């Protein structure tokens, strides 16, 4: 399917290219640890230095996630988060910010249950630019990828160390927005990859697509973010940010005073890291 529309993602990556640096993609779960606190963090992320925002759609069974994101998903669900409320948060965010791209990331079942056509329409109207759905490989493109493209939302595909040269063309066929390289085989927040491995993987993917390449999994410090942003178009940080939330909860799991600031301060350090990167 030819992609003949433009989203905030295309504009943002063009801007990063013009600035000659790699970008910071932050991942947080919508509604973690509660919807009010989560919205404050969300609204503060662009000023802190996030170039692209990934917002997790909480799911009861996050099969590809490690303990940090599993727990964050559960906190959000326990705080009453739903897919409807996730879209509400995007809508709230868009009242003050019409430039920072938002990508929803999660698993297929909540979207399928919501209804694919209705979801694409509502997500677009709320201001969503892209979707990452972990359990929808290219084999299942008819489920959501093609409807999303028809509704002018980017569908971002994951590539991994196991995606070989034979398979890469299939994976990038309907890709738009950017391509997400999962730098290690494993769940989120586990091991981190060597920069040299990332560099050669990015070069390999580059042979098959002109899209920006963001690299994630296991990036947990500003220096690591910079190192990845040196060799890729963006670095994705998720579990490490979520750990800051975890460290600032009281014994009942409620947000302590200062949680929002601490998360945003860490985001700022990550943002400062990628701003040192050079293309």
């Amino acid at each position, binding site marked *: 399917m030819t992609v003949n529309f433009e989203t905030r993602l295309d504009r943002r990556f063009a801007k990063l290219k013009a600035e000659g640096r790699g970008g910071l993609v932050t991942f947080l779960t919508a509604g973690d640890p509660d919807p009010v606190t989560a919205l404050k963090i969300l609204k503060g992320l662009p000023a802190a230095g996030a170039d692209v925002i990934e917002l997790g759609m909480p799911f009861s069974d996050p099969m590809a996630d490690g303990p940090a994101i599993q727990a964050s998903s559960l906190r959000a669900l326990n705080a009453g988060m739903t897919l409807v409320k996730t879209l509400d948060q995007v809508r709230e965010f868009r009242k003050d910010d019409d430039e920072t791209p938002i990508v929803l990331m999660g698993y*297929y079942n909540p979207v399928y249950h919501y209804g694919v056509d209705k979801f694409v329409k509502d997500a677009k109207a709320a201001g969503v630019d892209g979707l990452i759905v972990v*359990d929808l490989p290219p084999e299942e493109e008819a489920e959501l990828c093609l409807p999303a493209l028809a509704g002018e939302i980017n569908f971002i595909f994951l590539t991994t160390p196991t995606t070989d040269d034979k398979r890469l063309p299939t994976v990038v066929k309907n890709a738009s927005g950017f391509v997400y390289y999962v730098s290690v085989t494993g*769940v989120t927040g586990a091991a981190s990859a060597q920069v040299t491995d990332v560099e050669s993987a990015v070069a390999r993917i580059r042979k098959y697509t002109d899209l920006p390449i963001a690299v994630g999994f296991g990036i947990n410090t500003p220096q690591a973010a910079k190192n990845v942003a040196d060799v890729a178009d963006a670095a994705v940080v998720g579990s490490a940010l979520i750990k800051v939330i975890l460290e600032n909860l009281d014994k009942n799991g409620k947000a302590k005073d200062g949680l929002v600031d601490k998360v945003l301060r860490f985001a700022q350090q990550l943002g400062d890291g990628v701003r040192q990167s050079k293309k």
Partner: protein
Amino acid sequence: MSKPNTYREGPDQNGRFGIFGGQFVAETLMPLVHDVAEAYEAAKNDPEFAREKDYYLAQYVGRPSPLYFAERLTEEFGGAKVYLKREDLNHTGAHKINNTIGQILLARRMGKTRIIAETGAGQHGVATATVCALFNIPCTIYMGTKDIERQAPNVFRMKMLGAEVKPVTVGSCSLKDAMNEAIRDWVTNVHDTYFLIGTAAGMHPFPMMVRDFQCVIGDEVRVQCMEAEGRLPDTLVACIGGGSNAIGLFHPFLDEPDIRIIGTEAAGRGIETGKHAASLNAGSPGVLHGNRMYLLQDDDGQVLEADSISAGLDYPGIGPEHCWLHDTGRVEYVPITDDEALEAFQLMTRLEGIIPALESSHALAYVKKLAPELPKDNILVMNLSGRGDKDLNTVAAHMGVEMGVSL
């Protein structure tokens, strides 16, 4: 839904049975899932693979399992002639080993050096640990802590067999969560590890492959019933968790239009209480663990925790082929409560001297309702999928008996 010409052709090339099934898998695993599918196709067409599998099924598992005429149950019910397919007599005490023999041979052909598996009741875990001991391959079994508690004998068996049993403490601490953890392990160790799925569910090709390995049950029944009665059965009954023992019995008979086929799913404390595992009777289509199936879920598409006294049926989904057979109307699926299963458990034990698994007791509970309504010449075959020794603690607790004290 229009009736297909055959019920035995599925899945299609995309792994679908109607809208069910598929390959809803993270990209990291996708190449390996294709490898498994290719290796299985090659094995299926290799007479040496069939020869090796049949050898172990006969000499190691003890197949064919008997088709036993349950005279006293028949007399008790006063209707259909009740036959029991004695999968409980297989080595390790359940049908699960039919599948683990097939898959371990496949894993060896693929050169995999480590096995992981999920288990609920522990029967699949034991069957996996057993074949891993036989072929000297290290294995890790994921099991929810709720199940570890209620199936303690099987946990000890797995450990004795050399398996590492990893307790799963998240979510409902049962089969669903064990499956999540096994998938996380597979994603992490994708290069050397084979995920030996125990039921006819998960991503394609597993539902098809597990079904094929379990079809030995129905294939034998066909021959044995001809020998015993000179004709095919009229009625088939089996319990459904993920659905592997049931599809193994049903599949060879799906295109015999006169045979009535019934699956029993776990209604736990009653469907109206919300505490059950009846995904066909009370769920809706959803996507989990690599396939689309009927799923217990809330208004937001979050998966609900299942509830059943039987650890092997305590799962919020059901294999995709059963979902399709349900929608086409070819197979009837009925709910059976914990209490009905417990009553059937005791009935079979007393009348036949056979202690059935709580899973299989769900099938008998429906036979108890159905058989009296059927004519005396109706031949009913129930799959006695496993033995009940593992369930004695659960049953004793329910009866208020403290094991080892007040016996």
